[in-house]
């Protein structure tokens, strides 16, 4: 009986392992180009900008959205996990991640964000190419000490300040909330999408 159960479980696991997701199957059958969802883009941005260390392992889309928002990175209509990324959304969040939003003269015009990126030589035809010039924020806004306050899987080390708190300890509970530093402008190297996911 135990062996039978084990074999059934193993087969189920293998099936799960090898079967493509519903969306992938749909895409394969319809031959349409796989679109990148905003949830996938947010996950990539969190990793590229060095924000992943402030979140739990395998964060939810909402956790990725929240930390991007506090770093002032969001599409014009806000984050939507199920929505496909448009060129305008992509251009906006890349410019925001570069901390160059102030140089957009008409921020309500989606084309202005695209034109700006094209103007500085950043291609936005793929997410991989567009995110290539990004690198970790020097001191990002990261309310890591106060997110996931309760969940025992994700809660942080105690917020209690130590008797002799030093630089790191001083910064950990409270100051990383403010430790925001704009990203300096970076030359663009529009070569192959090394590390591109999409």
């Amino acid at each position, binding site marked *: 009986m135990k062996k039978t159960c084990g074999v059934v479980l193993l087969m189920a696991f293998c099936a*799960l*392992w090898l079967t493509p997701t*519903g*969306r*992938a199957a749909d895409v394969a059958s319809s031959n349409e180009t796989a679109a990148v969802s905003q949830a996938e883009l947010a996950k990539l941005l969190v*990793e*590229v900008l*060095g924000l*992943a*260390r402030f979140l*739990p*392992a395998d964060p939810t889309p*909402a956790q990725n*959205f929240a930390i991007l*928002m*506090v770093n002032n990175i*969001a599409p014009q209509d*806000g*984050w*939507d*996990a*199920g929505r496909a990324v448009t060129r305008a959304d992509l251009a906006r969040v890349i410019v925001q991640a570069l901390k160059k*939003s102030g140089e957009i003269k008409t*921020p309500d015009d989606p084309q202005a964000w695209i034109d700006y990126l094209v103007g500085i030589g950043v291609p936005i035809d793929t997410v991989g190419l567009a995110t290539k*010039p990004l690198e*970790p924020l*020097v001191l990002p*806004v990261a309310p890591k000490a*106060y997110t996931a*306050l*309760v969940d*025992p*899987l*994700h809660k942080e*080390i*105690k*917020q*209690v*300040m*130590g*008797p*002799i*708190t*030093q*630089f*790191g300890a*001083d910064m*950990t*509970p*409270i100051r990383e*909330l*403010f430790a*925001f*530093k*704009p990203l*300096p402008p*970076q*030359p663009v*190297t529009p070569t192959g999408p090394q*590390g591109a996911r999409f």
Partner: protein
Amino acid sequence: MKLIKWAGCFLAIFSLTSGVSLGLGSKNDLMINNALRLEYDDNIYQANTNKTASFKVVDQVEFLFNLNLEKTYLGVRYRPSFTWWENREAARTDTFQHEGDVVFNQVLTPRLSLSLSDNVRRGLQPELLDRNNGRIQENQDFFANTLNGTLGIVLSQKTRMDVDGRYYFLQYDNEAMTNNNYRVATGGVTLRHQLSGRTTVSGEARYENVTYDGVDRNSQSVYLGAGVEQTISARLLGSLSGGLQAKSFSAAELASQNSPYGNISLTYLPTALMRLTMGAGYSLYETDIFPYANQERLTGYASLAYDLSARLALYLSGAVTQGKYKQKFVVQSGASTVQDFDGTDTILQASARASYRLNRSNWLGAGYGYTTMSSDLRPDFVRNQYDVDWTIRF
């Protein structure tokens, strides 16, 4: 220990002298930052009376490495810091500290993903000691590590299951601190279903085992709960979760306790230049105040960021944590005399900060931090810290 200190010294000097010559430019997987801070602290020992004030000089180097491949992400950070006090009564007036973390994400198949993260701290955040021990932890001689792992399983296009594990331990070098050493092992399952692009609901089950060295304050908790994550509007994002927590103790004299737990957080962008975050949480929690084995902890926070210009930004934030300790959760500690009673421990933190981007690689900052503790169980204190800092990216 000496080896670690010398390694920290070497890395600090190396980064300061060799950063530019490394040719670190626009497309680097390795990044090095250095932050120098001058600080005035009016209460370095967090004392109630007879406060000791001191200037501090702090230098912190940060090494960041990012590897982002098609199915793999690896992020590594190492952050040693050196502190020198102008007025410190302890034998040493300088210390080294270390913090490092690793994040590893791997897509195994279209349906399976693995995420691992580890954070290690050496001497960074010593805990306050219990009220029966007047000493303070002066040597920062502790070691703490948090290991998290998640196996993500896509069940359908809109439903996924996460199987999580977490192991945390805090270990003091000093044997006299044995009662403050503890380990927390946690396992859990989360089932998430995306109702729409803006709404995700979840159900969760957790098991947590807390083990203390020394006197038996060990406990086991089971959590059952549900949650929702909602993009309320283009500028407002919220999450809410809660459930029931059942906690039992190894010590025979302690009765088990059931309690609700909950967590709420909001992220709001009122304007294009302003970000606002706030939240609160309540649960039963482990305790660092011996001889208590349990606390009921309520925490709230809020922070506001405002960009005054493309170069200048202001940040305000505050957080309050209140722990309720009850006499019925005091363990018998043998011959020691303990003053066991109900009490509340409240910690308030507030901070203001300005950051100015000088040029492409340099930032200047100024900040003020306020911390106060009001407690029935240990001495109250108030602490003010003023600082200016300079950060450079190599």
